[in-house]
């Protein structure tokens, strides 16, 4: 209501109800403002809390990564090659420790070897989490727990353990303290997605499927044993061997000496006989001139191209001249040789003639077809590319035909030998289990089944009458055949006659081939004054001893019947 005053100005008069209503609405406004303020403080605090990331890492490493485990690795028969051990590790939260001195004294009753000054420094301050001691035993964990010191806690870490120790060192590789693979199959597993699983915390012991490898630990053990024996018997500086299942491409055994202990990976860097960097995997990351073993490749290439026949004769009476070089035979017969004789007597001259019959460019193409000029596709990360000249000159083609002037890994050789024996079907090697059905689509036809048959005959012939007889003495009855190679090593800028690399590339049982094996003995000496130092005497004998022991394990029974060898002879030579 409005009243007009005398001066004519209007004044407003409010009733009691009206003024109370105004008061109420102003109070409501105050309350609303207060509520908004209070709730926005609460909301802000909530957002703030949501934004703070509680640092639960221990010295920068997340707990998921620390507790992550790795899958058990099994050999082909289910024996463990790598297992995880769950070990408690002690850590502290310094900001929750009430009395540092008391904690130090109590801790030292259980772990007396901890330095008190170091421990005091470690436990004081406002740090989040710090390690006190890693990889304890469950008994010690129990005792520390019973001390009842606040701010101490345990985390179960996984520690990798390799029960077979050095015997599988190059296959397994190694892991670092944070359980990440640094070498070998462990690194391959990480690169294959395990590292990702671990980082998101999905790698838990129970959920991990074991990894099945193709390795047979019994074969691995025999190889290791025999190669160690070879190191002392022939005073060699290194030895290595690889065995492959020719029908599946599985690597059944692979040993390279000198080696290291995967349970203490730093041993990899230790000197060997005063020399550095000797403990690498010679099978995959060593490349060598494999010498006369390469003649199998040359002969297979020429036979497959139809350039030579098993019945052909080759003039090996005189050495072959290339400019000022003359290439001659080591065990020279110096007469006309048949193709089986060229192989049996390991004639360099004969092999050059065989290569020349097919032409150097065709020979070079064959090497590309059989994958000798690129790295072998294989799971282990330690691989070295081969060195094969892009183009062959006359002389390089000639030396290459008997394995000099090109460097390849022993794995290349094993794969090619496996292919030549397996009806010409060459498979990429694998360290994982693979069935024949899985292998079939991967098959690469490198030579014809007929060539494969001829090569098997030549290999067996060499064992019966050629440089493989010493091998056959040991592995008699298991139908082993193969080719020796004694390659002179390059010392400085020239080939040295005294420093050689002895190789034996073999397969067995040749009537129904199953396994290919390449054995390497580096710088062997004669076992005694009566024995020789060429490959047949060392790499050959080692092959024989290995086969003698592993053949029964692999279910191959000895058979001495002459008919098996006779059946290998091609019809045109009977």
């Amino acid at each position, binding site marked *: 209501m409005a009243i007009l005053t005398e001066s004519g100005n209007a004044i407003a008069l409010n009733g009691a109800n009206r003024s109370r209503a105004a008061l109420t609405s102003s109070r409501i406004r105050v309350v609303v403002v207060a509520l908004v303020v209070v709730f926005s403080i609460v909301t802000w605090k909530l957002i703030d809390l949501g934004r703070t990331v509680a640092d639960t890492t221990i010295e920068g490493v997340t707990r998921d990564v620390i507790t992550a485990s790795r899958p058990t690795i099994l050999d082909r028969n289910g*024996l*463990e090659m790598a*297992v*995880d*051990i*769950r*070990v*408690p590790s002690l850590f502290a939260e310094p900001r929750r420790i009430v009395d540092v001195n008391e904690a130090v004294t109590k801790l030292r009753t259980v772990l007396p070897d901890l330095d008190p000054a170091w421990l005091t420094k470690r436990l004081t301050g406002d740090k989040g989490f710090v390690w006190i001691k890693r990889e304890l035993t*469950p008994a010690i*964990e*129990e005792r520390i*727990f019973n001390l009842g010191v606040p701010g101490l806690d345990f985390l*179960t870490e996984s520690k990798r*353990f390799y*029960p*077979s*120790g050095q*015997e599988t060192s190059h296959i397994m590789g190694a892991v670092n303290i944070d359980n990440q693979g640094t070498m070998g199959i462990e690194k391959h597993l990480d690169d294959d997605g395990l590292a990702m699983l671990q980082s998101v915390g999905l790698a838990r*012991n129970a959920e991990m499927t074991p990894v099945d490898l193709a390795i047979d*630990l*019994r074969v*691995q*053990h*025999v190889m*290791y*044993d025999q190669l160690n024996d070879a190191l002392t018997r022939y005073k060699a500086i290194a030895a290595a061997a690889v065995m492959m299942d020719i029908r599946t491409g599985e690597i059944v055994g692979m040993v390279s000496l000198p080696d290291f202990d995967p349970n203490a990976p730093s041993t990899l860097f230790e000197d060997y006989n005063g020399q550095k960097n000797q403990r690498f995997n010679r099978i995959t990351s060593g490349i060598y001139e494999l010498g006369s073993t390469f003649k199998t490749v040359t002969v297979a290439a020429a036979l497959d191209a139809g350039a030579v026949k098993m019945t052909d004769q080759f003039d090996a009476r005189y050495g072959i001249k290339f400019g000022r070089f003359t290439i001659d035979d080591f065990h020279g017969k110096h007469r006309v040789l048949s193709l089986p004789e060229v192989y049996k007597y390991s004639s360099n001259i004969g092999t050059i003639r065989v290569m020349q019959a097919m032409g150097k460019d065709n020979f070079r193409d064959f090497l590309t077809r059989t994958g000798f000029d690129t790295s072998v596709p294989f799971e282990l990360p330690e691989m070295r590319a081969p060195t094969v000249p892009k183009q062959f000159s006359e002389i390089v083609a000639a030396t290459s035909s008997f394995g000099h002037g090109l460097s390849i890994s022993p794995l290349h050789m094993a794969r090619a030998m496996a292919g030549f024996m397996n009806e010409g079907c060459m498979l990429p090697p694998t360290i994982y289990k693979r069935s024949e059905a899985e292998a079939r689509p991967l098959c690469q036809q490198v030579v014809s089944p007929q060539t494969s048959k001829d090569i098997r005959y030549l290999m067996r012939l060499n064992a019966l009458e050629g440089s493989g007889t010493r091998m056959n003495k040991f592995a*008699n*009855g*298991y139908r082993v055949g193969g080719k020796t190679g004694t390659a002179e090593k390059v010392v400085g800028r020239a080939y040295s006659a005294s420093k050689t690399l002895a190789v034996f590339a073999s397969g067995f049982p040749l009537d129904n081939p199953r396994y290919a094996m390449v054995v390497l003995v580096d710088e062997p000496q004669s076992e005694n004054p009566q024995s020789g130092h060429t490959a047949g005497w060392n790499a050959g004998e080692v092959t024989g001893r290995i086969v*003698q*022991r592993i053949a*029964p394990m692999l279910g191959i*029974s*000895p058979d*001495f019947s002459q008919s098996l060898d006779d059946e290998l002879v091609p019809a045109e030579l009977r």
Partner: protein
Amino acid sequence: MLKTLNAILLFVSLAGVVGVYALKYSVEDLATDKGRLERKIDRQNAELSLLQADWAYLNQPAHVAPIVVRHQAALGLEATRQEQFLGFDALPMRPAALDNAALNSLFETLASGVDPIGQIIEAN
């Protein structure tokens, strides 16, 4: 009416307080129990993994072979030679066993004075 309602509400809230209090402590007890069990499981898993590692180690050819070598002389152990493997066809045939039961019954009938063979001959 209102008084009764108030009394009931008071009683319910008191019961609620007591209930929540008890629940809190029982949950704490449970949590402690859970922690203890988890630690126990962890410890037993750890022990189990150690035992598994032991078992794996003891089964390794690398571990078994040195034991064989150690007892080689005493036990006269030798690697099997090729000549020692033979197929089933190389085994001589086992002689057919005698029918002991039939023979025994024949002897018994003979001992009791009956001669079955003689009877057969006489019958013809």
